């Protein structure tokens, strides 16, 4: 048993379009990426360590290799946090016993910062099959772009556009920290473990993920689910700003208004306001 390295690097696993999708939705669900024998081992570990912060699991090499540095997940994290990102140093377990209703509970996690910057990512891992019956986390896609305060959300119950993260064992979902989420309702009498941990950026952002030859920033789809809650096209601008920040081109972001970029439209030519730095991407 050795302590995991503080930082980590690997090949990027997301394309331009996938990074844009993350900016639109605020989360990425990777189903069943952790092998079943590891999931079983994690369940055994959590049966022994029932503390809500079983941080000791981060000292288990098998866990670090197969979960924290999971091939599929880490490639995505590499794209969103840049190279040499910092690995988690704290593990939380949202261990809950069903059944229970969900009649509220929406929140953004503490010490949030609503910003186009992606300085850290909150990641969730299900070591067991987590169908809707045992209360998978619910998120509201796009709400990482909508400032809110947890204490102002106490009255909220059903929200249009909610998405369940119901998924098989070994699933990992990566979120922008400030996305609105809650524990979903659970009808089954079952114990649910869900591990939650955070990775950190250590380097300035740059567009060093997998480039697509046919990616065109002028026509990239920034139509985020956040648009259902806000003024028309405002969500597009927010998602585009986050993408430019991730590209290391935040200073080139502009929303000059009207039908300018990144407002979606069928145009004869490049949209007015398209950032020059990436206009030939």
């Amino acid at each position, binding site marked *: 048993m050795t302590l995991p390295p503080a930082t980590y690097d690997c090949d990027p696993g997301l394309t331009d379009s996938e990074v844009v999708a993350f900016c639109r939705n605020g989360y990425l669900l990777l189903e069943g990426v952790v092998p079943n024998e590891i999931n079983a081992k994690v369940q055994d570990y959590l049966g022994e360590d029932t503390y809500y912060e079983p941080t000791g699991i981060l000292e288990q090499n098998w866990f670090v290799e197969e979960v924290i540095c999971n091939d599929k997940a880490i490639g995505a994290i590499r794209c969103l946090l840049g190279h040499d990102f910092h690995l988690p140093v704290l593990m939380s377990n949202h261990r809950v016993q069903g059944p229970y*209703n*969900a*009649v*509220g509970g929406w929140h953004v996690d503490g010490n949030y910062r609503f910003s186009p910057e992606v300085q850290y990512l909150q990641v969730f891992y299900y070591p067991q099959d987590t169908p809707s019956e045992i209360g998978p986390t*619910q998120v509201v896609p796009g709400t990482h772009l*909508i*400032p*809110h305060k947890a204490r*102002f959300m106490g*009255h*909220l*119950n*059903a*929200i*249009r*556009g*909610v998405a*369940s993260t119901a998924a098989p064992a070994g699933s990992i979902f990566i979120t922008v920290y400030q996305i609105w989420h809650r524990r979903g*309702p659970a009808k089954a009498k079952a114990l649910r473990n869900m591990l939650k941990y955070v990775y950190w950026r250590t380097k300035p952002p740059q567009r060093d993920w997998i480039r697509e030859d046919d990616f065109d920033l002028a026509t990239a789809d920034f139509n985020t689910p956040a648009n*259902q*809650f*806000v*003024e028309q096209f*405002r969500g597009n601008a927010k998602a585009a700003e986050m993408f430019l920040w991730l590209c290391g081109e935040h200073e080139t972001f502009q929303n000059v208004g009207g039908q300018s970029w990144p407002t979606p439209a069928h145009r004869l030519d490049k949209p007015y306001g398209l950032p020059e730095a990436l206009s030939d991407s």
Partner: protein
Amino acid sequence: MDEGRQSVDELVARLHAGTLTEQGLRAAFAEAVKSNSGCQELLILEASDSSPASTINAFSHFKDGEPQVVADDPEQWPYQTPLAAVKDGWRITTFPEMALQIVAEEEWHGVGFRFVLERTSP
């Protein structure tokens, strides 16, 4: 005969007939007050714009002093607009606070435009 449960018309008829007693009148008023003293029921509806005819984006229901389970699927919500709830007997007590929507031109706060409605549970 339960004088407290009589209708106004019946009470007036008894008044004209000279048969309405002080006890009967007091009982009728007591019953009227009692019928309006049930537990307050609340809907908190976050709509897509400031019109009570606009689409509901978030639905919360409180009844008998408890938050109620509401389906995740908006199609299953009992009302699709605040006005649909009004047609069903709910009364709007609070219109959206617009100031919260314009804290900054480039920023937004919350799900939408909050209507609070109430009625008295039977």
